[in-house]
């Protein structure tokens, strides 16, 4: 231990992250104290780390955080995350941000601040690469003198910002690659029904718990698009065909338009969604490079619609990972399994049921036949707490059936996940 240079001790202490752990460990010896004062690069005040944080008043917390931060010298990564009960004064937050402004690269700040305090103004903008805010207000953005030249990742959770300021903020971040919004509060004088944002550098966009009539995103370099727990009438992506990953989870959208952006899609993950199959299929049909397709807990708008394997195998020849879980009806088996073409590249198959019936076993068998190079099959099942006799019988029959299948397809590893 004596041989370790003090910077390395600083690195080790930085991996502790939690301020309390770091301060305690640093008092071990003189060298460690020097490491904590001069070479600590990461520090975190997170209410999850120490129960006492809940019991302290906001004022006491501010003093504690100030005293701790002011003993360090070269902080690169600062996390302050408290629960909803606390609110920090502008003066304290400004003091912390000014003190760390020259070295800070990553700031995670999830604490309520006063409504009139515009946190963006006080952030050290020159070096910041990651900015994550929660429960704050962005009241005004002046792109002419508030630029974030190094910012790569921006995350806003429960942050209040107007559409105009959001657009201005994006234009002030010329290198932004990741934008994530959770429950944004769009401040506006009138009832906001639509929004349009654009970024020429954005590669990943995710939005969660949001609702609007119309949302338009213009991003020529976008590769990842995630929508979760949202309600839109129209969601439109305007881009240049770079989209690789599309994830839609628990979303209600009448018109989802990704334009002519399907050509490079590699992963499509749709869950808890009502699909109009022809329209959806048309949207992704050009994705000949698709490697992973997941349709989980989806409901088809039209009772007669099914996902037919013939279409999937023809349109997505490079598919290596297929995950399907939806209500099976007779039509699904007859129409969905017809055809002869094989899914030659599928190596992993995930199949799930929400309420088990005899059709499921037949479906599994049918799919196994179509995947000659399968190496792994994972069955996801939902077992209800109260099992009636009939359900138990079906489950038993299914188990026997799978054992038989296992014998027939010896090269396939079969796993189960029940919840």
């Amino acid at each position, binding site marked *: *231990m*004596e*041989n*370790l*240079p003090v*910077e*390395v001790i600083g*690195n*080790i*202490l*930085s*991996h*502790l992250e939690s301020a309390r*752990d770091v301060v*305690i*460990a640093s*008092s*071990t*010896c*003189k*060298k460690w*104290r020097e490491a904590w004062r001069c070479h600590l690069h990461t520090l975190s005040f997170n209410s999850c780390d120490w129960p006492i944080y809940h019991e302290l008043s906001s004022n006491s917390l501010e003093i504690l955080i100030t005293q701790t931060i002011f003993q360090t010298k070269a902080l690169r990564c600062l996390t302050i995350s408290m629960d909803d009960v606390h609110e920090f004064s502008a003066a304290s937050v400004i003091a912390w941000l000014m003190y760390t402004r020259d070295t800070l690269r990553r700031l995670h700040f999830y604490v309520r601040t006063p409504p009139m305090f515009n946190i963006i103004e006080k952030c050290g903008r020159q070096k910041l690469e990651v900015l994550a805010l929660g429960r704050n207000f962005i009241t005004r953005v002046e792109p002419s003198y508030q630029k974030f030249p190094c910012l790569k990742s921006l995350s806003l959770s429960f942050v209040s910002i107007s559409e105009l300021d959001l657009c201005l903020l994006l234009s002030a971040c010329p290198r932004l690659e990741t934008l994530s919004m959770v429950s944004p509060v769009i401040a506006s004088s009138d009832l906001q029904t639509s929004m349009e944002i654009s970024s020429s550098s954005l590669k990943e966009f995710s939005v969660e718990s949001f609702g609007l009539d119309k949302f338009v995103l213009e991003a020529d370099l976008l590769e990842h698009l995630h929508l979760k727990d949202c309600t839109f009438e129209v969601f439109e992506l305007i881009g240049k065909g770079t989209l690789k990953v599309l994830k839609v989870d628990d979303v209600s959208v009448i018109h989802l338009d990704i334009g002519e952006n399907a050509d490079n899609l590699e992963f499509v993950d749709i869950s808890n969604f009502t699909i109009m199959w022809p329209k959806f299929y048309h949207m992704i049909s050009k994705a000949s490079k698709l490697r992973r397709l997941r349709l989980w807990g989806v409901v088809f708008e039209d009772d007669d619609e099914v996902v037919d394997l013939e279409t999937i195998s023809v349109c997505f020849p490079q598919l290596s990972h297929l995950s399907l879980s939806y209500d099976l009806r007779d039509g699904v088996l007859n129409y969905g399994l017809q055809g002869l073409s094989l899914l030659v590249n599928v190596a992993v198959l995930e199949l799930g049921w929400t309420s088990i019936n005899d059709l499921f076993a037949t479906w599994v068998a049918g799919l196994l036949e179509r995947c000659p190079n399968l190496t792994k099959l994972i069955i996801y099942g939902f077992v209800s707490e109260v099992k009636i006799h009939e359900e138990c019988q079906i489950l038993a029959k299914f188990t026997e059936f799978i054992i038989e299948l296992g014998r027939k397809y010896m090269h396939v590893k079969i796993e189960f996940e029940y919840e």
Partner: protein
Amino acid sequence: MSKTVKDAIETIPTDEINSISLSLVRSEILTKVIEYCKKHNSAQMSDVDLMDWDVEFANVHYTTLFDLVLSANYMNINCLLDLVCGKIADMIKGKTPGEIAKLFDIKDVSTYEEDN
């Protein structure tokens, strides 16, 4: 993977390279470092499997960990440095200063008042 080695290769003219001096690294430790670099460069394992492998790799006596930290620092291999520093940090977490000093056999334990 090692910035030190990369820099050495880039600065020394190619026809003069016979060996790159890594005088501070013991051979047993260098073997482990090479094992790590090979595993991480091979791209044969999935991310999850690689993480499990890393956990096993770092599951060694603390003196070996310190040697690995020194080597990774000297050879400038950031991912290995992060892995080993993280492992040492896990060992420190939740312990009192006295317990830490005992665990790592730290002799130079001075009190707070002595420095201030």
